[in-house]
């Protein structure tokens, strides 16, 4: 069960501001989602998923990167090729 305190804590960690009424609303929604997982837990299956897949690796080879222009396309603010971000300390 998720509590309102959990919601507030996660919001703080992600630096997301939420209004006074919102913790209650999100708590309700989170718990509704988690209930679906309870249903999944009740599905009968073989138990352990075994996947015999290890050491999936690629060779150390260089591939082209995006252009700076493309990289910055989605950035809300830029300066001299950098992405501008609020200062967090």
């Amino acid at each position, binding site marked *: 069960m998720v509590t309102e305190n959990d919601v507030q*804590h996660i919001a703080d*960690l*992600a*630096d997301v501001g939420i209004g006074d009424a919102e913790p209650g609303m999100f708590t309700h929604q989170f718990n509704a989602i988690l209930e679906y997982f309870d249903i999944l837990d009740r599905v009968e299956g073989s138990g352990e998923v075994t*996947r015999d*897949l*290890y*050491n*999936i*690796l*690629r*060779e*150390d*080879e*260089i*591939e*082209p*990167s*995006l*252009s*700076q222009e493309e*990289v*910055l396309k989605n950035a809300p603010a830029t*300066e*001299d*090729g*950098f*992405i*501008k*971000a*609020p*200062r*967090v*300390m």
Partner: protein
Amino acid sequence: MADPDGQVIVGLEVHCQLDTKSKLFCGCSTDYRSDGPNTHVCPICLGLPGAMPALNKRAIEYAMKVAKALNCEILNESEFSRKNYFYPDLDKAYQITQYDKPLAEGGYLEIESDEGGERKIRLTRIHVEEDPGRLVHMGNVERGKYSLVDYNRAGIPLIEIVSEPDMRSPKEARKFLNKLRATLEYLNVFDSEKEGSIRVDANISIKGSERVEVKNITSYKGVEKALTFEVTRQKNLIRRGQKIERETRHYLEARGVTQAGRSKEQEHDYRYFPEPDLRPLRVRSWLDGIVLPELPDARRERFMAEYGCSLNHARTLTGELKLANFFEKVVASDKRGLSPLAATWIADTLKGELNYRDMSLDLVEPAAMTGLVLLLKAETITDKSGVEVLRVMLDQRLKNEPAETPDAIVKRLNLAKTPGDTGAITKAIDEAITENPKALDDYRAGRSGALNFLVGQVMKKTRGKADPAELNRLLTGELKKREA
């Protein structure tokens, strides 16, 4: 109450960039330093939705090489985890790292202890992770308006080497770091000359008190400085009867101080969970195929055996890969004949002159150094003139002027000893001893002041022209003769 003179306890977490061609999870080039910001990024290292990481084989091979060299155990199975935190240097809002199943555990590194002799510093673990991006804070240190983000560094492969709290002083921490750097260089997996290629977090406490984590140490010298500052700060607090808070502090390189940071997220706040986009590793069997090169300890022993170097010279020379290679090139033509002089002149004089100029050894021709050593060996020039020749050589290279050979410099500056110089000194020595029989008696009685007294007398007689090293050698020889 805690004892302000209690034992200092230090443990380090060292992050080193592995010198692969491409990043850890994508094909972007790691050679970003001379390029503009955000030019070495792709959907994977930019954390765009749907992009899937693909693990770089060479990064794992390099990390295993390090693990083998540091005597670690490779875990049968290791895996990557997501470490979640929200900060502009992390585009995905999580870092792919290793948590409860690191690549390697245990191991140790031997360093020279403060008392001399070797001491084992135990290692906790080595894990592989991706470097976050680089932030440039605009505005002053305390209050900036915003940060500029460059993701070129995001996804560069790092190994984090975690030590046990086995170091007992800031100086030992520096030695550990230097030894680690040398080992990584010998393994050819790391380039210490690249800016920011190593970053250190240090845990430091005074026995009986809480420990403090110092973050953001980005230079080799910074480690000793930051920790020395912390020792003083913590001891002063204890002396005033105050408690040391368990906290994270940031090292401000420019000011040489540490400063309390924001309260760190608790470990459970990182919400680690296994990275679902990467399969676990089972690579322990690769160990057999890894052939280690000669490492610093072995090379140090070889320098002592093969070249007759003193322990200290062998330690200094093999403490940097380039310096060790340089030395071997300089003496190649006559190992036994040139080594004693070359060791001193490279480990002490050249290294000091390079440091003074903040100059790279790359600029010095081994052949030129051989030339200088030959002149010194033939006693064509005094030690004092040798230093002068070396300085001219270095300054010419530094200023990109045509480089003269040591012989040419000696000729141009007329530094060659005139024949009879030794004769004049010998004569002065003879006189000094004859005129001061009491000094000879004192010397025989083992009073150390006698030698210095006689050196002073000879200097007076030769009006300071005698080369002090040569004078010492000749005088000691003469005294020994008379002692017999």
